């Protein structure tokens, strides 16, 4: 791969080397024991050494080495892009001051001191080998290339160490941003060496300083420009989703090349391009493109990294390229460690005067020790011109030793060191909604306090920037739809819900796998099911899953059967399997209809199940009372044929419920089991368990479970899933439901389920003192009213005079019409405007008729 030149004998060896890389990675990952101690980069270098040895033995001469052009043009950009794109931007900009200081001042300090000290060593005559012909400029040049901390090495080692984020971002940010300094210093000294010390004028120094600003700021500007372009382009790729990821890679790479072409800092360009475009790109591109970008980027970066370290190892075998000088090697090793440590301590001392949270000694030790050198230094030293830099071979040898030393020795020891020093590790925990919310609040508070004090600090500028971003940038660079939905709190909430839903399915949904769970791009579309996940969890806590499985084992097959039946019934809407036309387009991945349909159904199923589950948890009693009501209703119906189950004012429901005794419950549940066959489904098992588990012991004898007395709307809600089960699609609301819900409540119902819940159901009355205050009087009253009013009310709710009369006449004349009227608004909220197909009505009416 890297062997660009045609080689006669060993052509097969290049693929051989490549073929070894990936399996070896695999092996490394498999053997956890090895990788937990030895960083992958070390292993790769050693492997490269081994491979290089084999090649050397076979070919009698070294063949492959890390070509600088290859490295800078192809291997480095993916790594830098990956690190820029996935850079935690908030953390990065929070610490930008420290990062810049270490990157600029630190690198300057390192290169000058190391260069000068080595020159001093040389002057003192300690370098025994007379071949080391080098003046001050040569040593400064060497110092500039050897002193820069290498992003590839740092990333490879620190990723496995898991130090706390601040420490990581400082070291890593430094390694990325010092590129500008390195490039400038390298170029300046290189030209100085070419000119010869005698011909350097003062203006050259000034030019050097000026070019530093040009290179760094120019590189950053190129990066920002391309980030802007990229964001703007992704705004308009709605119809060409398939090339969205391509744009991301292409433009980032173009940014790199453009900066490289005009000899600006290419690494800075890509880094800033990645950091800045991410927010807008992620908002614009589709979920699938996001996944593609993520994985492609990670894959590219890690394979580049692998190749780099492998070839570093292989290059070291090439003895013809380097000449050993002990004093130079040892001196360099000693000086880079020493000056790094000194530099870090000095800078930290200054920085801590300004930092909110000072960096303590342990941090400084890790920072000094974590200054790893790597492939950048190696590539730069290979690039040196032997004709001008006489001591190139010595420098190559030294660089190889330094790189090997830092990557292998420091890489191996940094983990024990971090453990031994008890460095604060990063704890990766999932973001919680509370943290997100309160941290936002903190930011606002701080910004406000800064405003009050009149102190234009960090938060002031952050606030300004965010407002600017919101007003102009986001509107310009984001799709309308994406912009509308963008809110960080909502994002976190959304992600959490997806996660919950996945775990929900994992635990209970064995019929429908989690893989099928749709991740809809529009959060609002699934808001209903989300709110139900929330409520579900809120009400049930962790115990939910156990019950869930019970329900699922009972229900899931049924669900599927029903769905299948439904397919047959509604062939016009949902096509059965295998009837899709295969279509092909290179530029569009046509959304698989089958897939979409499955998703849709699945989503509905999920929603329903959540509802179901919620209502069984929530309305334990109500199902009992419902069953009783049913019973009575039925008896009456037997007498009065053709009359629907009674319209029950919701007030009546609660008292009835209070009087239910435990043996009645038993009979009720058996009753419900029997009913199970008839189409009105009650979960007998689930309710029983829930009831026994959940009733509050204190008030057990007064009322089976007062804590979960269902307010009437949820009583209605309870019905939803069952009917839904039968009809699979839209018919969540049974005829009974609408009758039980009183008129005024129906209005609220119509608005939305969740708003209704918030109005009517005090969620989780169980323990809250506040709610108990409310609940007590009600509970005390209820038995009274129940004892007084029950017989009367029972008779009344069998024949609710004012409502039933009118509606009876209506329903007699046109039952469908009434139902439709009552159902329609509910359908609207439940199904996002999907109309209730007429087939459903008929089916509904039919099933009810048979039921009666």
């Amino acid at each position, binding site marked *: 791969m890297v062997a660009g030149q045609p080689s006669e004998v060993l052509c097969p060896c290049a693929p051989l080397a490549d073929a070894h890389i990936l399996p070896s990675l695999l092996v490394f990952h498999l053997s956890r024991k090895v990788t937990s101690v030895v960083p992958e980069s070390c292993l790769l270098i050693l492997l490269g050494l081994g491979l290089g040895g084999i090649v050397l033995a076979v070919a009698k001469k070294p063949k492959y080495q890390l070509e600088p052009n290859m490295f800078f043009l192809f291997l480095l950009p993916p790594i830098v892009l990956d690190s820029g794109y996935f850079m935690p931007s908030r953390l990065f900009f929070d610490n930008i001051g420290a990062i810049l200081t270490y990157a600029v001042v630190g690198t300057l300090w390192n290169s000058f001191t190391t260069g000068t000290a080595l020159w001093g060593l040389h002057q003192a005559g300690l370098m025994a080998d007379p071949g080391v012909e080098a003046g001050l400029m040569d040593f400064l040049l060497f110092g500039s290339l050897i002193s820069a901390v290498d992003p590839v090495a740092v990333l490879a080692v620190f990723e496995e160490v898991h130090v706390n984020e601040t420490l990581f971002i400082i070291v890593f940010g430094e390694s990325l941003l010092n590129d500008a300094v390195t490039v400038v210093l390298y170029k300046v000294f290189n030209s100085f060496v070419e000119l010869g010390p005698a011909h350097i004028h003062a203006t050259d120094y000034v030019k050097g300083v000026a070019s530093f600003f040009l290179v760094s700021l120019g590189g950053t500007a190129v990066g920002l420009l391309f980030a802007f372009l990229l964001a703007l382009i992704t705004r308009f790729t709605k119809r060409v989703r398939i090339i969205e990821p391509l744009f991301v890679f292409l433009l980032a790479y173009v940014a790199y090349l453009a900066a490289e072409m005009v000899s600006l800092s290419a690494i800075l360009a890509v880094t800033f391009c990645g950091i800045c475009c991410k927010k807008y790109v992620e908002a614009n591109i589709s979920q699938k493109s996001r996944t593609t970008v993520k994985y492609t980027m990670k894959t590219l970066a890690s394979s580049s990294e692998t190749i780099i370290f492998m070839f570093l190892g292989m290059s070291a075998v090439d003895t013809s390229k380097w000449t050993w000088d002990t004093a130079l090697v040892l001196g360099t090793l000693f000086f880079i460690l020493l000056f790094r440590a000194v530099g870090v301590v000095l800078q930290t001392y200054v920085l801590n005067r*300004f930092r*909110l*949270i*000072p960096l303590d000694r342990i941090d400084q030790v890790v920072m000094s020790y974590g200054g790893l050198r790597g492939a950048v230094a190696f590539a730069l030293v290979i690039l040196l011109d032997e004709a001008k830099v006489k001591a190139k071979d010595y420098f190559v040898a030294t660089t190889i030793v330094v790189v090997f030393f830092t990557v292998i020795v420091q890489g191996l020891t940094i983990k024990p060191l971090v453990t031994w020093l008890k460095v604060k590790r990063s*704890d990766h*925990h999932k973001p*919680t*909604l*509370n*943290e997100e*919310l*309160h*941290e*936002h*609040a*903190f*930011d*606002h*508070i*701080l*910004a*406000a*306090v800064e*405003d*009050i*004090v*009149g*102190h234009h*600090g960090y*938060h*002031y500028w952050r*606030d300004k920037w965010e*407002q600017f971003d919101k007003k102009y940038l986001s509107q310009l660079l984001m799709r309308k739809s994406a912009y*509308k*939905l963008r*809110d960080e*709190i*909502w994002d976190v*909430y959304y992600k959490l*819900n997806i996660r919950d839903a996945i775990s929900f399915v994992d635990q209970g949904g064995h019929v429908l796998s989690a893989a099928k769970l749709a991740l809809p791009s529009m*959060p*609002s579309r699934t*808001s209903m099911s989300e*709110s139900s996940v*929330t*409520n579900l*969890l*809120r009400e049930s806590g962790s115990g939910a899953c156990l019950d869930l499985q019970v329900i699922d084992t009972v229900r899931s097959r049924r669900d599927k059967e029903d769905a299948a039946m439904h397919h047959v019934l509604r062939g016009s809407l949902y096509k059965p399997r295998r009837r899709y036309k295969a279509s092909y387009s290179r530029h569009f991945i046509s959304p698989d209809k089958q897939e979409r349909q499955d998703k849709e159904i699945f989503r509905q199923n999920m929603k329903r199940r959540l509802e179901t589950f919620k209502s069984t948890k929530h309305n334990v009693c109500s199902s009992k009372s419902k069953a009783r009501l049913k019973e009575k209703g039925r008896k009456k119906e037997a007498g009065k044929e053709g009359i629907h189950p009674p319209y029950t004012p919701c007030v009546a429901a609660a008292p009835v419920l209070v009087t239910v005794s435990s043996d009645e419950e038993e009979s009720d549940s058996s009753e419900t089991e029997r009913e199970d066959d008839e189409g009105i489904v009650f979960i007998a098992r689930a309710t029983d368990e829930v009831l026994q588990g959940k009733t509050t012991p204190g008030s057990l004898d007064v009322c089976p479970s007062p804590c979960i007395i269902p307010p009437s709307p949820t009583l209605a809600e309870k019905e939803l899933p069952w009917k839904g089960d039968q009809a699979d699609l839209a018919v969540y609301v049974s005829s009974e439901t609408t009758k039980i819900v009183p008129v005024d409540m129906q209005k609220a119902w119509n608005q*939305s389920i*969740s*708003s209704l819940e*918030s109005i009517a159901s005090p*969620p*989780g009355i*169980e*323990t*809250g*003192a*506040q*709610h108990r205050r409310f609940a007590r009087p009600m509970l005390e009253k209820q038995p009274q009213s129940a004892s007084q009013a029950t017989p009367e009310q029972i008779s009344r709710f069998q024949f609710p005079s004012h409502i039933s009369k009118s509606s009876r006449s209506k329903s007699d004349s046109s039952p469908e019409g009434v139902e439709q009227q009552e159902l329609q608004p509910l359908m609207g909220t439940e199904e996002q405007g999907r109309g209730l197909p007429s087939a459903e009505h008929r089916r509904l009416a039919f099933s009810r008729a048979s039921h009666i």
Partner: protein
Amino acid sequence: MCRMFQCYTEVNCDACRCLTDELFVVEHARTAILQPTREDFQRIPELAINPLGDRIINAFFPEGEDQVNFRGFMRTLAHFRPIEDNEKSKDQNGPEPLNSRSNKLHFAFRLYDLDKDDKISRDELLQVLRMMVGVNISDEQLGSIADRTIQEADQDGDCAISFAEFVKVLEKVDVEQKMSIRFLH
């Protein structure tokens, strides 16, 4: 008390620069003749566009009062002073400094807790959420966020977040850093 003085010297120049010009005639760092009122705060343009601006202004004013003296002002600001290393170790038994972690958290907590019952109820949370998120999020979505937030934090099942729960849920957050301002650079 000495901590307060330390805070004075750290903050006063900046504080005066803003509130002074015509409001404050500061003769000495610790004495202020005029006392800024609520309106003076509300006149700060940036605060008008800060979603939590009014709440924060309220936090500066003692219960039922419409003016704040310099001491009170500083007392509130002292919450945001960074914790220094030497403070962490000493005086465990002494009175808790205003800039301790729990005091910082309590300041934030009070912004939520309007009715001062030491609990963030769902309504109170919803109000803050409404202020902080854009109009694009519907009430319904907001409601479910609030529910979820409370469910996440709620440990005793009272459907409200008490201060203990508030502290618990933020225990992994670096409050010392995120609620501190360096007033002098």
